[in-house]
């Protein structure tokens, strides 16, 4: 990016109040400004939209976004460089947006590819309908279909226009962050890991660029003063940003609200409100990752153990992301007749349970009920049920604040009963429970064959698969899939899971379901809730004593159900450390058989954290994945402490960094003296700041000479300024030897150079009328030769003088003062900077 860094001679960024700027210079700036700013806006918008990866699958959409934004911004920048009025610029940008969207999405129906026709509008309607379908029903990450991408491109294009208008037309670059926020909001709301690092970095970098260019190139007359900023803009912005990041990191680690407060996980909201919604697989993971379980459901049951509560099932494994099958045609309304078929299935003893559910703030469209419901009463609103899956779905109602009683019947299953089940599925079973999509990865088949090798019956195979997944090579983690980008559902996700071998219930249940189908067993994934915790309360219902359990978002769970002919759907528990392994599925001595401990029912993390010894002693093997959590947390603790310490150090070092940055900049100005920069001013500013750091600030009314003469009278003597006897001859009165190598000499070198530059005649080199041949004239020996010609010589007299002054100040100060000045320079402290700016050197008027 070509940036014109020639600035006003104010080395310290002091604004000049003199309006006279060379016209040619400002013209040049104006012509470069639109392009630089357009580049900055482009970086910001495209950078921020990087965060949409994860909302949309893959990166193919990005090129369309880049084209859209580039066209829009190029149009506005061109319009600006042609001096078209602002409103026209924005209209042209809008026109360009429409055209480029037409070209990208509707070029077949448009005239010349860019001019929309009536047919284009129809196509637009179709795409928008497609987009709204995707948005409502899709699970992030959604496929980058045309509709969604069109909406995203249009939205981002409009955001780019908005940012452009704010930053350039209205000259409010800082406010332009609002436009970026609009883009940030989408991934922040939808993605489990929020915006993500690339999106944040890209957006932040672009925003900083906008701010920087907003200061450098202000094409609007009202902000031309701001355009006279110094070259230190970038460094200052960087220092500021570093400080902001440090403070944010500190605040996030110190304020409890960010991990457990009102908005856990940094106010990362669930996509569909409080708990769960239309996308069971997506919201399940989010619920699990809520540090504090969101929502609460209480049920009381007369069953001997806690019950799994089902909400819905997934059985169609085709497509990129699995969703509940919609069977509106076969849904039935009468809840009293629910489950009649399944009870007929049962060929053995039955256990009938009564459960009272109070669902307070759970708001899923599916009713959480234990399997297999035979009747549900007490519901408000209209509900329907699916005979295939027994999932109960509200027609005009949700589970929110319902209280209902469920009767459920479950066959008493034993290993022997299951082992004797018929080996072929009945023909009446819907083939969807058996079908494997063509894209089933090979790794699934391989693993299934490995796991089920040697198993005879279907039940043996099922057990083998379950135990394979519960074996120690798999670990439970709610974060790993997010971190590795395979959160969600689908065959790709499954393949990735089987490689990484870390995930949570969604992955384990999907794996077992698909592997079961590979092994020839019909299967489906059930979404619902694990049994939860006993509250200790009992409820009496019709003379029976019901134990009360409590379920929250952390109990969100999914598990596979496998179909055994003659027995019906049989649940399994392949997820290590979660739920209860059913009695029939336990193998003595095998991994996963030790789930007798009721603790195992509980949330893995909470359980492990609260009662690690119990968990460890009761079930040594499954505890391995459990223990990984707390151990990792313990290991992370010193990391956190050291990170916090580093952050604190960085924050403490900020003044030092700011100060040394300024010093370096000034020294560079002195050394290189590019056109437009004034080395003498930079050196003088550094001298003033040095003096400030060492407790001798320049007073408001100080002339350069009064200031230096006070400096020379030493840090500890009185500083009374005398008008009657101006120190016209600084240094000589103090009687100190004053060669340029001594403190007084060095100060005089700086003073002379500064005075000549600021007050001396401009064209000819200002000279003293007398070269001090007698009477020890104002300029000492150092003053009359070196700096008058500028710092081009190899020695850089000004820099040497600064060094000498610094050394002298250091040597003549107390240890405390010295430490303060060197480590926490007062001049760089923000509360001092305000008053500091009062003592900036005058700028040399150029007008």
């Amino acid at each position, binding site marked *: 990016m070509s940036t014109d860094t020639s600035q006003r001679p104010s080395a310290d960024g*002091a*604004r*000049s*109040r*003199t309006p006279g700027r060379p016209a040619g210079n400002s013209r040049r700036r104006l012509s470069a400004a639109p392009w630089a700013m357009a580049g900055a806006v482009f970086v910001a918008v495209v950078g921020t939209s990087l965060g949409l990866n994860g909302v949309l699958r893959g990166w193919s959409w990005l090129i369309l976004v880049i084209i859209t934004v580039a066209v829009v911004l190029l149009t506005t920048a061109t319009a600006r460089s042609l001096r078209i009025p602002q409103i026209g610029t924005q209209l042209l940008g809008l026109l360009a947006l429409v055209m480029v969207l037409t070209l990208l999405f509707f070029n077949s129906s448009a005239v010349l590819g860019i001019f929309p026709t009536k047919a284009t509008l129809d196509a637009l309607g179709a795409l928008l309908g497609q987009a709204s379908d995707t948005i409502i029903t899709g699970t992030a990450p959604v496929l980058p279909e045309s509709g969604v991408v069109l909406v995203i491109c249009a939205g981002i294009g409009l955001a780019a226009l908005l940012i452009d208008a704010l930053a350039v037309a209205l000259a409010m670059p800082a406010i332009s962050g609002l436009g970026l926020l609009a883009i940030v909001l989408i991934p922040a709301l939808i993605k489990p890991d929020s915006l993500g690092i690339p999106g944040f970095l890209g957006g932040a970098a672009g925003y900083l660029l906008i701010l920087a260019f907003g200061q450098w190139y202000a094409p609007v007359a009202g902000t031309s003063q701001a355009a006279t900023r110094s070259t230190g803009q970038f460094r200052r912005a960087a220092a500021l940003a570093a400080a902001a990041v440090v403070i944010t990191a500190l605040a996030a680690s110190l304020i409890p609200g960010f991990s457990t407060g009102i908005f856990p996980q940094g106010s990362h909201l669930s996509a569909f409100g409080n708990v769960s919604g239309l996308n069971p697989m997506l919201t399940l993971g989010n619920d699990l990752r809520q540090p504090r379980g969101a929502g609460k459901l209480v049920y009381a049951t007369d069953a001997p153990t806690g019950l799994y509560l089902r909400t819905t099932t997934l059985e169609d494994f085709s497509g990129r992301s699995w969703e509940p099958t919609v069977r509106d045609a076969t849904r039935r309304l009468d809840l009293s007749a629910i489950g009649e078929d399944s009870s007929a299935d049962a060929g053995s003893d039955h256990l009938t349970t009564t459960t009272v559910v109070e669902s307070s703030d759970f708001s899923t469209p599916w009713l959480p009920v234990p399997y297999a419901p035979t009747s549900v009463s007490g519901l408000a609103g209209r509900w329907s049920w699916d005979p295939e899956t027994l999932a109960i779905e509200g027609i005009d109602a949700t589970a929110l604040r319902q209280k209902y009683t469920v009767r459920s019947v479950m066959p008493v299953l034993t290993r022997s009963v299951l082992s004797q089940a018929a080996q072929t599925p009945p023909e009446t079973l819907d083939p969807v429970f058996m079908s494997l999509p063509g894209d089933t990865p090979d790794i699934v088949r391989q693993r299934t064959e490995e796991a089920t090798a040697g198993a005879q019956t279907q039940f043996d195979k099922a057990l083998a698969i379950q135990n394979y997944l519960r074996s120690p090579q798999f670990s439970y983690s709610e974060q790993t899939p997010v971190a590795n980008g395979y959160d969600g559902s689908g065959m790709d996700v499954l393949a990735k899971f089987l490689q990484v071998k870390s995930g949570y219930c969604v992955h384990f249940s999907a794996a077992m379901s698909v592997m079961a189908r590979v092994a020839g067993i019909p299967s489906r994934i059930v979404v619902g809730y694990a049994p939860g915790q006993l509250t200790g309360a009992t409820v009496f219902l019709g003379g029976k004593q019901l134990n009360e359990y409590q379920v929250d978002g952390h109990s969100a769970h999914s598990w596979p159900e496998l179909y055994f002919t003659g027995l019906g759907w049989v649940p399994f528990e392949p997820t290590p450390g979660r739920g209860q392994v059913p009695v029939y599925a336990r193998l003595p001595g095998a991994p996963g058989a030790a789930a007798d401990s009721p603790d195992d029912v509980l949330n893995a993390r909470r359980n492990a954290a609260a009662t690690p010894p119990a968990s460890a002693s009761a079930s040594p093997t499954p505890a391995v994945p459990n223990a990984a959590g707390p151990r990792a947390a313990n290991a992370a603790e010193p990391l956190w402490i050291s990170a916090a310490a580093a952050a604190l150090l960085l924050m403490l070092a900020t003044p030092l960094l700011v100060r040394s940055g300024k010093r370096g900049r000034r020294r560079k100005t002195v050394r290189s003296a590019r056109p437009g920069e004034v080395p003498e001013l930079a050196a003088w500013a550094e001298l003033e700041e040095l003096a400030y750091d060492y407790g001798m600030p320049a*007073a*408001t*009314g*100080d*002339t*350069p*000479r*009064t200031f230096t003469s006070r400096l020379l009278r030493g840090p500890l003597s009185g500083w009374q*300024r005398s*008008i*009657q006897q*101006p120190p*016209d001859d600084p240094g000589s009165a103090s009687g100190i030897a004053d060669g340029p190598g001594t403190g007084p000499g060095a100060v005089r070198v700086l003073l002379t150079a500064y*005075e*000549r530059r*600021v*007050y*001396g*005649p401009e064209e000819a080199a*200002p*000279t*003293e*009328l*007398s*070269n*001090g*041949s*007698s*009477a020890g*004239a*104002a300029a000492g020996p150092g003053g009359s030769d070196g700096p008058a010609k500028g710092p081009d010589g190899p020695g850089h007299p000004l820099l040497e003088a600064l060094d000498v002054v610094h050394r002298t100040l250091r040597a003549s100060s107390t240890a405390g003062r010295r430490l303060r000045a060197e480590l926490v320079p007062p001049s760089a402290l923000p509360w001092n900077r305000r008053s500091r*700016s*009062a*003592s*900036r*050197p*005058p*700028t*040399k*008027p150029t*007008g």
Partner: protein
Amino acid sequence: MPANGRTADSAGPVTAQTLMTADQFQDLSERILASVNTVIDGKARAAEIALTVLLARGHLLVEDVPGVGKTLLAKTLARTIDCSVSRIQFTPDLLPSDITGVSIYNQSTQKFEFRAGAVFANIVIGDEINRASAKTQSALLESMEEHRVTTDGTSHRLPEPFMVVATQNPIEMEGTYPLPEAQRDRFMARISMGYPDRASEIDMLSTHQSVSPLEAVRSIATVREVAAMMDTVDAVYVSSAVKEYVVRLGQATRESAQLRLGASPRALLQLLRAAKAHAALRQRNFVLPDDVVTMADVVLAHRLILERRSASTGQTAAGIIAAILDEQPVSPVRSSRSGAQR
């Protein structure tokens, strides 16, 4: 100059064709000051300001009690320079024509002839100027401003360089006509001599016993040389930073709540000229804010009029100027700050 005017060249305007070299200027100014200092003991600053005012083409008002050497200072300065000097002792019966001159009918030529008054000299010493009537004072002040005398429709140009050194006695008030504010504005600077310090006074008692030291003063510089020095002063460079500073000082006096009358534009012009002369005397060809600060008190103090309340609380113009100098930042950035604080 009016076109119908006739110019009387009593001494002739002296202009230097070339500027002095730095060494010449320094040498000459140091010799002048040394000479003055041999007569006036311990008053180096007063002598320097007097020379500064002379080189800045201004007039000097010396205000002090009798007997501290006001007139002696003026006389010594006049003698040091080889130029015409006249001394007017102002009394209540002094007439304007005594100062400016009068046209007398010459019987032999049968014409009116202009007989120049006391003001026609390079250095005019006006002793106890406040003793004369306002009319007479005005006659002098007019010629000070315009460097010419007009009688009977004829302009008579005063010699160059032309400097009035007036003395005034602030104690003795009876029968005096203190200079009104507008008149005081005509003087570039006002100084007060003050009593000499102990050593200087002892020194003075011994040296001034028998013969007046004034007798020993030799002229050191010619009129032409002084004019050249003035031209050198004129050529001193003033950066716009300094000009802005001067203007800000002036504004501050006008905005000060303690002052009824602040510095006039003429006051600022004279302050800058004094600063230029001061810079030249310090061997510089450009003005520093320090020059302005040094001259601010003597140039501005006698022009300011204090609010009655400030005067009654014992504040002085000098004190207020010192406060303004302390408050006013030298750089423009500072001024915006203090402006915001006000």
